[in-house]
C-alpha cells in the first residue's frame, strides 16, 4: 500500500465501495444495482450510501429477501444488455443462491457454445473478526474458487476497491467481488480519477528478501503487521497481495519466491479446501527448486466460526500465527 501523505485525500474502504460503484454508474448507463436494503437505507454496511440519492430508484433497486431472485434476475439482465451489480448482504448467504453461482452464471457461456455472455458483478461482505457468529462471519472465497467460470476479486485497501470495482463492472465475465467486513473502517489513499486495477494482477505490498507472505483482502494488512514485527527480529518479509483468486497471479508469487525462497500463505478461509492449497500445489509443482523450506499455510481452523472474540481469535489467522509460522522456517 502506498504511503499516505498529507496532500492525498484519505477515504475508508466502506466509502470506497460506494465511490467505486458511483463512478461506474456515472460512466455507463447500463450499470444498475440491486440487493437487500441497498437503496434509501444505503446498505446494512453503508457501502451503497448516497447512491440512491444520486441515481434514484431506476438505477438502485431494493429487493425482497430473495437471494435466488437477486442473482437470477441479475443474470437475466446481464444476458440482455445490462451490467447489473447484485449485492448478497453476507457471503454466507451464497448458500441460499448457490445454484446461480455454481450451476447457472459460470456455465452459461460455455454450455451455449459461446452464444451468451454474463457480464455481472456479485458483491458481498465476507469474513470474520466482528463477532457475528457462525452464519455471518465466514470467509467463503474458497467456495467460489471451486467453480470454473467465475472471476474472484477481493481487494485489501480503498484504492484497490475502486480500481478493481471498475475492472469488475467493465468485465464481460461474471465477477464475485468480496468486500471484507473487517476492513470497512480501514483507511487509505483515495484512488485517482478513472483508476482501474486489472483483474488478475497481484501486487507487492511490501518488499523483502527472506520470506514471502501471500495474502488476500484482510490477510494483507495482517501480513503487513506481521512483516513489521519480523523486521524487528531481523527477518525481511515480502508481502504479496493476490487481489484476485481468478485470474490467479502465480507469476507474481513465483517471482517473489525467486527472491525469498520461503513461502507462508495467509488465508482466512478454512484450511480444508482453502485457496492456499491451490497456491501451494502450483508452487510445489513449478517452484520446487526455488524453495529452501517447506510451504506453510496459516488458515482458518476447520471449525464453524465461534461468537466470542476470545474464541474467534483462536480460529482465524492472527499476526502471532503468521510470525510463528515464519520463525519455523528460519531453521531451514
Amino acid at each position: 500500500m502506498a504511503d499516505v501523505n498529507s496532500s492525498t485525500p484519505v477515504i475508508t474502504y466502506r466509502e470506497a465501495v460506494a465511490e467505486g460503484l458511483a463512478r461506474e454508474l456515472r460512466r455507463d448507463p447500463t450499470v444498475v444495482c440491486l440487493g437487500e436494503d441497498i437503496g434509501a437505507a444505503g446498505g446494512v454496511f453503508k457501502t451503497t450510501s448516497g447512491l440512491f440519492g444520486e441515481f434514484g430508484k431506476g438505477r438502485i433497486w431494493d429487493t425482497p429477501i430473495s437471494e435466488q431472485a437477486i442473482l437470477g434476475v441479475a443474470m437475466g439482465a446481464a444476458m440482455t444488455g445490462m451490467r447489473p451489480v447484485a449485492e448478497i448482504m453476507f457471503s454466507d448467504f451464497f448458500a441460499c443462491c448457490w445454484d446461480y453461482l455454481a450451476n447457472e452464471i459460470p456455465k452459461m457461456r460455455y454450455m451455449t457454445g459461446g452464444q451468451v455472455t454474463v457480464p455481472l458483478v456479485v458483491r458481498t461482505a465476507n469474513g470474520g473478526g466482528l463477532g457475528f457468529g457462525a452464519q455471518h462471519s465466514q470467509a467463503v472465497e474458497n467456495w467460489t474458487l471451486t467453480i470454473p467460470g467465475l472471476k474472484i476479486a477481493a481487494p485489501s485497501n480503498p484504492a484497490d476497491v475502486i480500481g478493481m470495482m471498475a475492472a469488475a463492472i467493465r468485465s464481460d465475465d461474471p465477477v464475485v467481488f468480496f468486500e471484507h467486513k473487517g476492513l470497512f473502517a480501514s483507511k487509505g489513499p483515495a484512488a485517482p480519477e478513472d483508476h482501474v486495477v486489472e483483474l488478475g494482477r497481484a501486487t507487492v505490498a511490501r518488499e523483502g528478501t527472506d520470506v514471502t507472505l501471500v495474502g488476500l483482502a484482510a490477510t494483507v494488512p495482517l501480513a503487513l503487521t506481521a512483516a513489521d514485527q519480523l523486521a524487528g527480529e531481523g527477518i525481511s518479509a515480502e508481502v504479496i497481495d493476490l487481489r484476485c483468486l481468478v485470474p490467479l497471479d502465480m507469476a507474481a508469487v513465483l517471482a517473489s519466491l525467486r527472491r525469498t525462497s520461503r513461502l507462508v500463505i495467509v488465508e482466512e478461509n478454512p484450511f480444508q479446501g482453502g485457496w492456499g492449497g491451490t497456491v501451494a500445489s502450483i508452487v510445489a509443482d513449478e517452484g520446487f527448486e526455488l524453495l529452501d523450506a517447506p510451504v506453510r499455510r496459516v488458515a482458518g481452523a476447520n471449525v464453524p466460526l465461534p461468537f466470542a472474540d476470545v474464541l474467534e481469535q483462536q480460529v482465524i489467522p492472527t499476526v502471532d500465527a503468521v510470525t510463528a509460522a515464519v520463525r519455523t522456517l528460519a531453521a531451514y
Partner: protein
Amino acid sequence: MTAVDASASALEADQLLALYEEMALIRATEKAAHDLFLSGLVKGTTHLAAGQEAVAVGASAALRPDDYVFATYRGHHHAMARGATPVECLAELMSKGTGLCRAKGGSMHLTKASAGMLGSYAIVGSHLPMAAGAAWSARLRGTGQVAVAFFGDGATNIGAFHEALNLSVVWALPVLFICENNLYMEYTPIHEVTAVADPAAGRAPAYGIPAEVIDGNDVLIVWDAVRRAAERARAGQGPTLLEAKTYRHFGHSRTDPASYRPAAEVEQWLSRDPLDLARARLRALGVLDESVAAADERAAATVAEAVAAAKAAPEPDPGDAMTDVWADGGSAWRT
C-alpha cells in the same frame, strides 16, 4: 378450462396451417430424436416434448421476434418454435460440432440466442428469475420486449418459482410465466405432492398475479392467452401466469417407459393430441385435408434431410473443450 375467446378466431386459416406445420415439424423431430437414441446415436439423455407442441408453437406465434424465451431441459419444442432448425437441434443431440451449442450443451441446454431463445435449463425452476431479469432489462432499456419462462408443474414447488413470482409483480415486470402442466413432476403425479388443484395458477393469486388455466393442447387457445398476457405486459401491467394443461407422449426421459400412467389416462390424452385438435380446427375453417397432408409431408421430408445432414456432420474439434469459459473465448485462469 376457458372456452376459446371470440377474438381467437382472428387467426386466419393460413396462419393456423403454418402453426400446424410447425407442430408437425417438432413432432417429427422428436420422433427422430427418439429413434436416433434407440440406435445409439444420441448420448446422455433426452426429455422429449412430443404432445406438448401446442404450448411452444401457440406462445411463440403470439410473441414478437425480439421477445425472450427461457425453457427447461424439456425444451426442444421451444428452441424450434423460436427458429432453431431440426438439423441444428439433432446435430447437438448427436454431439456434432455443427449443433446449436457446438456440442457443448446437449439436449438439455438447447439455446438460440440470436433468436431470443436464451437457454434451456436443467436445474428445475432456475430460469424463472432469469426471465424476470430479462424482463427487467427490457423495462430498463424501454424496448417493449417481454420475456417468457416456460416450466413444468414440478417447478412450482421449488423456491425460485416463488421468489420470481413475488419479485416480478412487485417490480411490475413484463414477464409471462407459462406452466406446462403435464400432470407428472417426473414419475410422481403432481397432485400427490401439491395440495392445490392447479399447482401454478393456484399459487399466483397469493402473489397478486393474474392467472389463467388453459387447454395447452389447443394451439389456438394458447396463442390467444399468450397474446393477451403479452399485451398486458407491454402495457406496463406486469406479469401473468398461464397454466397450460397438457401431456407428454413419451416418458419423463429416455429411460422412462412411463408405466406409472394409467392406460385410460394415456388413451384419453392421446385422443386429444394437439395435432389432431389443430386438424379439426383447420377442417372447420375449410382447409382441405390435402393441404394438411402436404404440410405433414414437408415436415417429414425436412426432418429426414436433417437426420441425414446431422449424421454426416463433423465431430466437434477436441480443442473446443477448452474454449468459451470466458468472454474472450478462452479458459485461462492463472498466470
